[in-house]
């Protein structure tokens, strides 16, 4: 973390980002315009259809999904976030030592509690147990 007092140099040091931004936007813009001029444009019905990995597209994408997909997506986030936090933790693990181990353990324990909750509520199964009983 910078401890020096901020000044004009603090702001100018970020000018590289501005330059980078201009180069990026310029590169894309130039290419798009250039190819628009050079390339032949021969449209056909086939070319205008939605690309589905070579399959013929059928029906609309606006269909009703099973609500269970939503719950599973939420569950996925639990482990997604776990991975996001555990990677940097693993990188500095050696330097911090036993304390890092303890803190990682606490973090994983909290996520394990969330998993236990979800499991007991029957949300890990595609067909929920309470639905089956009915």
């Amino acid at each position, binding site marked *: 973390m910078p401890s*020096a007092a901020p000044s*004009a140099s603090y702001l100018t040091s970020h000018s590289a980002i501005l330059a980078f931004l201009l180069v990026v936007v310029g590169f894309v813009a130039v290419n798009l315009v250039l190819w628009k001029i050079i390339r032949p444009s021969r449209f056909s019905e086939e070319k205008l259809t939605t690309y589905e990995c070579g399959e013929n597209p059928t029906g609309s994408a606006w269909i009703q999904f099973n609500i269970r997909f939503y719950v599973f997506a939420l569950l996925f986030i639990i482990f997604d976030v776990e991975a996001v936090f555990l990677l940097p933790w693993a990188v500095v693990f050696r330097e911090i030592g036993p*304390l890092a181990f303890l803190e990682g353990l606490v973090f994983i324990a*909290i996520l394990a509690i969330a998993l236990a*909750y979800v499991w007991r509520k029957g949300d890990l199964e595609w067909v929920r147990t*309470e639905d089956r009983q009915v």
Partner: protein
Amino acid sequence: MTPPVVDVLPAIPALILAVTGLAVLLAQAFTPRGQAAPGAPFSLAGLLAALVAVYLLAARGGGDLGGTYVVDAFSLYFHALIIGVGLVVVLLSPSYLRATGIDRGEYYTLVLFSLVGMLGLVSCRELVSLFVSLEVMSVALYALAGLHRARPESQEAALKYFITGAFSSGFLLYGIALLYGASGSTSLVAVGAALRTPGPATAALATMGTGLLLVGFGFKVASVPFHMWAPDVYEGAPTTITALMSAGVKAAAFGALLRVFGQALPALAASWQPAVAALAVVTMVVGNLGALAQSNLKRMLAYSSVAHAGYLLAAVVAAPGIGVEAVLFYLVAYAAVNLGGFGALAALARQGREPLSLDDVAGLASRRPALAAALAVYLISLTGVPVSAGFVGKFFLFRAAVNAGWTSLAVIGVLMSVVSAYYYLRVVVAMYMREPLGEDAWAPVPPSAGLALGLSAAVVLALGVHPEPVLTWARLAARSLL
């Protein structure tokens, strides 16, 4: 790199609440279907343990967790207030949840998690952890607002609260980013030091950042023109959660506002004071006039909560300085009164219904004399009649504004308090001077809710008659901020 030495003791109260929340969650999951999970007793035990921890911390003189999470007299004051709010809400909850059919263990988990966020909000001396605390508090409340899943109003409340909340978080975060850009640090103390000698570019950045922070906090404390969500959310959310929002969230948000503006932005006071003063005026006027037009008691109390944000902002103008202790004192008085007001409605809930109109409370004094008396005490305190906490609190708020040279704010505040007497006392009149209508539709007051309401009324009267101890404490807390 040496391992950081972290003193976790200051975070113990928050940790106790977090662990209790997890325990309640597990207890709920492992309770056989059809049985009630022991959410309320667990939560009460956790809250009492946290209160003891706060007391021990105070005896130890507070502490500091790596410079980001600081427990000084200021946060200890808010710790006690927020945990007290939590205790009252948990006492009010079991009977209300049963009466409205939303008796689930997750309720208590979410309440405890939101309390953890509030504790963080008043303790963080670093802008990013402050933001994380704000989200911890808010996310739990979004879910709680929508707990009445079958009621459209509750769904509306959850959605509105979530969208406006996320929107305001965006403002706050952008403000934090600009302050970081202006000062090169997210620590409040470092920001404050950097802004004392700003260059022209950083001054502009910091002023914009301050404005965005003000908008973000304006949403959270429900000040006009950022109040549009408040009436709908307060009406649609379960009543006990409305009590938690109006007492706890408002206190925590004002705590964070005072800390950020008092520690990081005193150098910019000349530019934010007029803005806060303008917010205070429109909030007092629109809040009170809006409350006049309401026939629904929950909406009326919601607008009244907006109006009270205005009174509090009038004293924030006088911060950093004499305004802080006035705000701290009034937050206690205001929390007790709002917990009582919403709690009284919740205590009467039966079979999914609760009293919401003047007709519903007509003649309540003859059927529930104790509850009607308590509700009358709260309403009189909200009006600001002497011998109630509201009078003493408003006196200090307006005195702070006058002493800081903002006499017009105090004049508007007093005038608007007179206006507010109409809609508060209308309820008292309905309870005492009208005949009850029809059969008695309401539940007998449950013992735990009765205890909670009695406690709130006792606090209101005690603060009105003998404000000295709390005032001394508030003064001490305010001094630790400077």
